[in-house]
C-alpha cells in the first residue's frame, strides 16, 4: 500500500527545502505587537534562531548532515521605487539563493555575544549569561512591498529545485509580511507556487502577518469568516491547508486545529512568530 502524501523521510537522497520570504519594507521599522522591538529586528532574530536550531539539529558526530537546502530572500523597493529582491544571507553566503544546511552551519556571517536567560545549574533560578549567537541575516526595512514579484521568483526557484529532487518531501515556503502587496494581487502567484509538487505532495506555502498592534492573533484559521480585514482574507487564500501530520504535531504542541486549518497566522507577535516557524517547518523537527 503506498504511503500517504507528505510522508517522505528527509535524507541526503531526499533532501528537504525550506524557503523563507521576508518582507523588508519600511513598515517593518514599526514595533512588533506592542513591544519595544522593531518587527525587522524580531524577524531577523527569529530567522537566525531557526537557522541556528536547524544547524544544530542536522549536526551529527562528523559535522552537519546535508539533509536540507535553505533559502532566505528579502523583498523591498529602494528610495526610487525600484524593486529589490535578493538573498538575505550575509557573509560568505551572500548572494546565494539556496544553500545546504551544512553551509549554513559552517558559515555564519558572524558570531554575536548576547546575554540570555537560562536556568542555573541547580535549576533554582534564571540567570543571565553571555551566549555566542551566530548571525546569518540582519534586519532591513526600506521602501515598498513587491510581494508578487517575490512569489514569482520563488516559483521559478522551486520549480528548478523540484526538477532536481522530484521525490523529496515538497518544499515548504514560509512568507512573513506586515502589509499588503504593492505590485498586484498575490493570490494567483501563491496558487502557482502551491501547484508545484513532488511525488510526495504539493509545495506548502505558509503566510505569517506581523502586527504593529497588540490585537489578538489568529493562528491557523480554518475558514476566512471572522478574520479581521481584507489582508487577512488574502493571506488565508494564499496559504496551504495543513497536511495531517501537521495536525498531529499541532495537537502535541497544544493547538486545537479545525479540519481544513491553513498554514497562516495573522497579527502575530514574537511568540506567535516562533510558534509559526516551528509549526511550519515541523518536518525538519523529526530528523532522526
Amino acid at each position, binding site marked *: 500500500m503506498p504511503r500517504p502524501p507528505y510522508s*517522505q523521510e528527509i535524507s541526503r537522497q531526499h533532501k528537504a527545502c525550506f524557503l523563507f520570504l521576508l518582507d523588508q519594507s519600511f513598515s517593518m521599522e514599526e514595533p512588533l505587537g506592542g513591544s519595544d522591538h522593531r518587527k525587522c529586528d524580531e524577524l531577523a532574530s527569529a530567522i537566525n534562531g531557526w537557522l541556528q536550531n536547524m544547524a544544530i*539539529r542536522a*549536526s551529527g558526530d*562528523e559535522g552537519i548532515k546535508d539533509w536540507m537546502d535553505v533559502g532566505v530572500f528579502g523583498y523591498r523597493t529602494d528610495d526610487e521605487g525600484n524593486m529589490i529582491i535578493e538573498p538575505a544571507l550575509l557573509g560568505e553566503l551572500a548572494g546565494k539563493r539556496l544553500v545546504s544546511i551544512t553551509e549554513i*552551519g559552517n558559515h555564519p556571517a558572524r558570531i554575536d555575544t548576547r546575554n540570555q536567560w537560562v536556568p542555573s545549574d541547580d535549576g533554582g533560578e534564571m540567570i543571565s549569561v553571555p551566549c555566542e549567537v*551566530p548571525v546569518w541575516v540582519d534586519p532591513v526595512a526600506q521602501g515598498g512591498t513587491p510581494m508578487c514579484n517575490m512569489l514569482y521568483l520563488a516559483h521559478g526557484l522551486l520549480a528548478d529545485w523540484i526538477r532536481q529532487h522530484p521525490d523529496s518531501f515538497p518544499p515548504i515556503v514560509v512568507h512573513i509580511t506586515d502589509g499588503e502587496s504593492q505590485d498586484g494581487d498575490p493570490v494567483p502567484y501563491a496558487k502557482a507556487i502551491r501547484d508545484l509538487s513532488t511525488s510526495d505532495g504539493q509545495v506548502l506555502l505558509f503566510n505569517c502577518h506581523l502586527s504593529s498592534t497588540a490585537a489578538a492573533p489568529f493562528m491557523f484559521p480554518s475558514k476566512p469568516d471572522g478574520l479581521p480585514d481584507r489582508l487577512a482574507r488574502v493571506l488565508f487564500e494564499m496559504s496551504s491547508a495543513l497536511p495531517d501530520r501537521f495536525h498531529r504535531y499541532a495537537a502535541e504542541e497544544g493547538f486545537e486545529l479545525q479540519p481544513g486549518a491553513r498554514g497562516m497566522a495573522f497579527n502575530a507577535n514574537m511568540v506567535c512568530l516562533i510558534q509559526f516557524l516551528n509549526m511550519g517547518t515541523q518536518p525538519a523537527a523529526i530528523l*532522526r
Partner: protein
Amino acid sequence: MEDNPALKRLRWQWRALTVAKDADYPDENQDVVCVDGERGAAAIADGVGSSLFARAWAAILVEAAVRGQPNLEDREALARWLAELRAAWRRQIDVAQLAWFQKAKLRDGAFSTLLAIRLVPPQPLSHEAKPAWRLQGMGIGDCCLFHLRGGRLLRKFPVQTSAELDHYPLVLGSVDLNRDEHLAFDRFDEPCREGDLVILCTDALADWALRQEEDGRAAHWEEYWDMEATAWKERILSLRSEREIRCDDTTLVMLRIVGDPGDSSQEEGD
C-alpha cells in the same frame, strides 16, 4: 537430561542484518545490536539520529544490557546503572574538538531506545509440573520483538499495532535532564523452548512488518535466515524506493533458541 528438555542448556544461534538510513554512509547507522549467544542475552537499540553521538550511546546501552539487565524494581539501582553509562558516554567525547553547533547540541546529550532480552533457566526448586525456560525482556521505546514458534506468532512486544509507531518513542538520554522519573520500561516474561525464533528489529522494519500483518500478509521471517546480506539489503532498498518502508536505519536480529552445543552462526550485513 534428554528426558527433561527444560534441563537442557539453551542459547542463541543468531544472525543480524542492517542497512543504514543512508545506505552509502553505513558509519552513520545509529542502530546497534549486541548478542551473547552462549549466555542467551541480546539487545538492540536505535540511537536518535538527530542527537549527537547517539550511536556511541546506543552501543553503551546494548553492551550493558547484555552484561546484565538493571533491576527495574529498584529505582536507585536503575539510577546508578544509568549514571555509570552516562559517565562512560561522556568520557568518549573530546569537547574541545567540537564545532559550535556540536557544543550546543552536547548539552542535551544523545538519545536511544533499548530492547533487551535474555533466556532464563527454570528455577532449580521450581514447583511447576513442567519447568520451562523463560524468555524475559525489557524495553523502552519502539524497538520491537516478535516471538514465533513453528512460523506462528506467539507474542509482539512492546508495540502491537503500526499506529503505535506514529508517535515519538520514549528514549533513554545520555545526559541527566531531570526527567528520569518519566522513564517507563515495558517488560514481559513468558515460556520459551528450543526451536523458537525470536525477532528483534528497529522501528522501520517493525512498522513494515506490522502493516504487513494488518493487511493479512504476515512477514515470513524464516526466509531471511538464509538470505545473503546483500540480497536483504537490496530488499530493503527496494521497499524504500516503493515507499513501503520508512527510510530509516533498518536492523533485523534473528535469534533461534537452540540447545545443542556447537558453533553459533553469526553474520552482520552492511
